[in-house]
């Protein structure tokens, strides 16, 4: 029963190879808000399912270490895959799948459910914003295939700025909640795993760099296209700001 629940949880709180279920589920929804909501809800569902499983502290140590290794490997694989993704929706889902590996790590380390939820939100929230923006691109340009037009920042500055912030949050850049979650997560796992997570951070940065290069630089070659409205940009800014405040609070940083 526990194993079944774990496998079910791995389908919505992505863990390789069952993460494809999560990815398929999100991809099957209409691009935009629906996908964003799914990115927020599904990981929480997974955490709820994990709550039904006996705590990992009751498991043999070797099982726990094995699960940690699996979560680490899963995060690495998805990050590696994200490097070659050119579709913004796919890139976001893969980065989300990679980042949510930290939740599994926390669960293996025995973190309480409330902490796990907050950690998941740290990735899901920017992921949801990025998926929403991918939907905007699909509607306005016809697809969210980054790097085709180049220099999107010149024609859609608000959208690009929002996307850049979301991508930074998604790749655990300092001040965003994911960074504090990772920081704490790395402090609570055996030292032997840390060397594997450091290249992971490098891979996330690399993937974000590729995204930015395609978004920000070069000359725009596409059709004329309208930017997102100021209210939308302001709302996204507020959401991400709230996430930063939350990150500081949960991360134990005194402002």
């Amino acid at each position, binding site marked *: 029963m526990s194993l079944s629940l774990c496998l079910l949880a791995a389908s919505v709180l992505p863990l390789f190879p069952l993460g494809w279920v999560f990815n398929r589920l999100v991809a099957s929804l209409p691009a935009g808000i629906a996908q964003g909501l799914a990115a927020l809800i599904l990981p929480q569902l997974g955490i709820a399912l994990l709550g039904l499983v006996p705590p990992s502290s009751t498991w043999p140590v070797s099982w726990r270490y094995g699960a940690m290794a699996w979560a680490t490997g899963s995060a690495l694989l998805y990050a590696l895959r994200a490097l070659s993704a050119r579709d913004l929706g796919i890139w976001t889902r893969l980065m989300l799948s990679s980042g949510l590996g930290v939740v599994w790590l926390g669960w293996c380390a025995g973190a309480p459910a409330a902490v796990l939820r907050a950690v998941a939100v740290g990735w899901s929230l920017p992921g949801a914003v990025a998926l929403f923006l991918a939907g905007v691109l699909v509607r306005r*340009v016809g*697809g969210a295939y980054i790097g085709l*037009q180049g220099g999107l920042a010149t024609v859609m500055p608000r959208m690009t700025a929002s996307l850049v912030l979301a991508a930074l949050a998604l790749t655990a850049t300092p001040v965003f909640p994911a960074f504090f979650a990772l920081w704490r997560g790395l402090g609570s796992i055996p030292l032997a795993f840390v060397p594997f997570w450091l290249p992971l951070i490098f891979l996330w940065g690399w993937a974000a760099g590729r995204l930015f290069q395609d978004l920000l630089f070069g000359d725009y070659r596409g059709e004329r296209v309208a930017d997102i409205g100021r209210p939308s940009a302001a709302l996204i800014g507020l959401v991400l700001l709230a996430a930063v405040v939350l990150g500081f609070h949960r991360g134990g940083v005194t402002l």
Partner: protein
Amino acid sequence: MTLTLGDRLKVRSMVYVASEPIPRFWPMRTFIHHNPLYGLEHRPFVEAVAEGSRLFHARGYLDRGQYQEYRREGRIDDALLRRRIREFLAARAGLPSELDLEAWLWHLATACRRPRVVEAGDWVSGAGIAAVWRGQPAPPPEGDLDAALRAALGRRCAPESPVYAHVDALFGTTLGATLDDLLSKSCLDFFDEGQSAWQAPGREAGFFRAWKAIARRNARFLLRGLHLRQVLAEEETAEGMVAYVLRRLEVPEAVWQDYITRELTRMHGWAGFIRYRMGAKHYYWAQRYPADLVDFLAVRMVLGFALLQEGRRHHGTPASASEILALLDGKPRQAYLRHELYGGTILPAWAHRVDNALARGRPEAIARIASAYVAARTDWENRRTAEALRALAQAVGATEEAALADLAPGQTDALLSVLRDWEDGEGQVWLEAMESRCIDELVAKIRPPASGEPGAKRPFAQALFCIDVRSERMRRHLEALGDYQTFGIAGFFGIPLGYLEFGKGSEAHLCPAVQTPKNLVLEIPAGLDFEEEPLYDALEHVLHELKASVLSPFVAVEAVGLLFSLGLVGRTLAPLGYHRWRTRLHAGKPVTRLLLDKLSPEQADSVIRAVQRAMIVRALARELRIPRDQVTDDDVRNLREIALGNEPGPSRLAQRLGMTEAAEREFLDKLRSVYRIDQGVTSLQMGRLGRIGFSVEEQVRYVTQALLSIGADRNFSRFVLLVAHMSQSENNPYESALDCGACGGGKGLPNARALAGMANKPEVRRRLRERGIVIPEDTWFLPAIHNTTTDVIELHDLDLLPARHLLYLERLRSGLSAAGRCCAAERMPLLGAAPRLAADPFAAAALAQRQAHDWSQVRPEWGLARNAYAIVARRALTEGVDLQGRAFLQSYDYRLDPKGRLLENILTGPLVVGEWINLEHYFSVVDTESYGSGSKVYHNVAGRFAVMTGNQSDLRTGLPAQTVLKDGRPYHEPVRLIALVEAPLEFARRTVGRIAKVQALIGGGWVRLLVLDPEDDYRVHVLEDGGFRVHPRSGRGGHAPSKNPVLEASS
């Protein structure tokens, strides 16, 4: 494979011809404004612009939106625009008669906001658009899809394009960018002129040989997986390597030349610099480290070939032209999808699907997707075009919209063809309409003299300024102040000279870049006191050495790093105060004289003897530790004669000091090799000394020519100022771009001093008098320099001024100072300063001073931006007219030039320099990135001779955005140079006709020519469409101003 001499010459000549379109790029220390399309000047402007766009991937005109903005500001001649539309339509047959096409094109040009209505597309057709209007999807291409795709690919993939460019376009690789990076690094290593602390080894052997020696063991290449050893082992020479790689790439020999052109133009900055070096025989670095374009091409081709081979090994990408052709021909569907995806033109909705299909590589799936994609693309292209046409029709009128919907597919095709052709040539029409407005403005400003000659009152001072547009303001303000008369002359004052400045080790050429000076002028200190290097200068020298050292960062930062912060803080917070403080610390430049007179053979021999004797004394002290007091003059003479082979050994000194024969021989060898006391060197030095100075005949000729060319043959005033110009800025690699273009990007003061020295000489004046040019005894030619950044005019050689002139010096200085302040008050608001400065000359002048010393200032002055006119005429025609610093003003009086020789000189010298300056600005505005050098903010100095964007790139040629744009919009109005010549029409035509180069420039439309005919009631004749027409607003009277001058003229 070893090439025969014939093959090698063939490759070399191919490279030579292929490089013709690439403009030479001068080092930035002597920035030469040049036409980026100089290599295409033999072709008409319109054709050259099109060819330049193809070769350099650049734009030749502004975009439509910017021209529309100019139109809203009244800068466009609507009448000409309409006339050109009518002419365009009149020249075409088979137009859709249902539409008012003139109205269509008018709206398209003046109201349409799209950059293009008919965009490039493979599948747009009248039938497709008709289907869209019927509410149906546009039908996919009929017949054989593969054949249609092959045709589309044929239009996109030119056979002369480099193989790696095809691979990049078809496989999404970045071989081209990687190749550019690797080549940039290789070039930086080789061409460095002292910026790097550690120099690349073996550079004396030439670029290709030096690079080859390093490339075999270059870790950078090895890490990239490039196997260069095998390739480099195939051929020894650069020519052989070029031929070898071209054959291995299987490039058809028929397209080698075009292929080479494409390779060279890809990095035209580096190629242009190497072209310059090849032609600059006097260039020190080129003499020391030779390189040519064949070397450059060979390095590029080897690297490109290795990258292709590496791509084949690791990714299975094609590595030859025939493999590319096989893909395009054999798998057109896959190739088309690849080109769409990696070329960035794919419909975004299809990108992921196509990417997946190509990654899986299943032929059936690819064929299916290609078919579906072409259908979608066809529908999208036709829909987009139909929408654009409908929007345009709506703007023209409701009836047009209805008529458009009723067009048969064939008529729609005709309409598309009209619009496409119009849009292709629209930029040129806008340009002509803009120029027409500028011509109208100029003609309206010209002031033909009412009648008779101006009064012959002797002015207080006369001043000869450079024709540079920045002199116009100064001249206007100076004349407005009172009794001043000004002239315009090319800033080298007609004296091409090589100049060896005191304290400098190399000769500067102070003349237009198209000339090579024969005469050399030396600057020698006139001070009699022995000067030692001041303490501060010595300290600064030490710090500079320390900064350049590789090891100093490890040991010296803590010790002396803080010292540098003084400069940092001072320059940032108080640039002017800091500059004044530092100037006080430095030793001032000593009083100097120019060696102007030619040396006689005896004098030259005496100079060489003196130098050689001094060298022998020094050699004895250094090599043999024999002090001067143990050596007699006779010993030195004896040693010199023996070293030169005029006398046999042993020397008297050796005998006296008991030197062995071997020791003496060794010393004599050193005298010959190290101290250059050698017969061959002596002959060479005699030849070089022969270049120094000017003979009296030459001096008389240069002074005569300078005075007559500006129409100054009488009524000389007490002071005749020869005002050269320079600029002053900090932290500005483009500083020399602001100096004098007629002096090869240098400062023209030596030329002014030289001319003044000649003209003040009694012997010269006597001979001038014989030629009818009478210079009064109390006239003194005084050199000066106009600092165009601060608007200060500084007088020079005042110590030579006769005492009686000193009485008037104060008046002269105060006049110049006031004019400078007025000039600053006019300029500073244009640079973004507060408008109130226009009324506060003192504050404006203070700000100008600050700008010149502010190291954060990206735009210390506007330089030559907004130049538009070249006026070759008497000053009387423009005196008192505000030409807003937009005109090159060359004084000229045709009455002193019966044979037209002076005009010939003006047209071949100053006019060509003006044309280069003008077109450099023009192209830098219309394409800031490709023809210009982009933003200064990202520039870094490369090798001390150029700038690059970021840490490595092609050399950035052209002008930076900050020089030509203001707030993102063109500050420089991009029009071709409008040259107005005051002379009888026939006389001007004959003169132009005698100079092939000028005729090509004017006939080809690189320069717009206006002839102001004083013998035809001062009417202006405008050269247009191959003939002259009279401008209706021109003339001294009797010509009623017309509302529409162009149309009236044409009628």
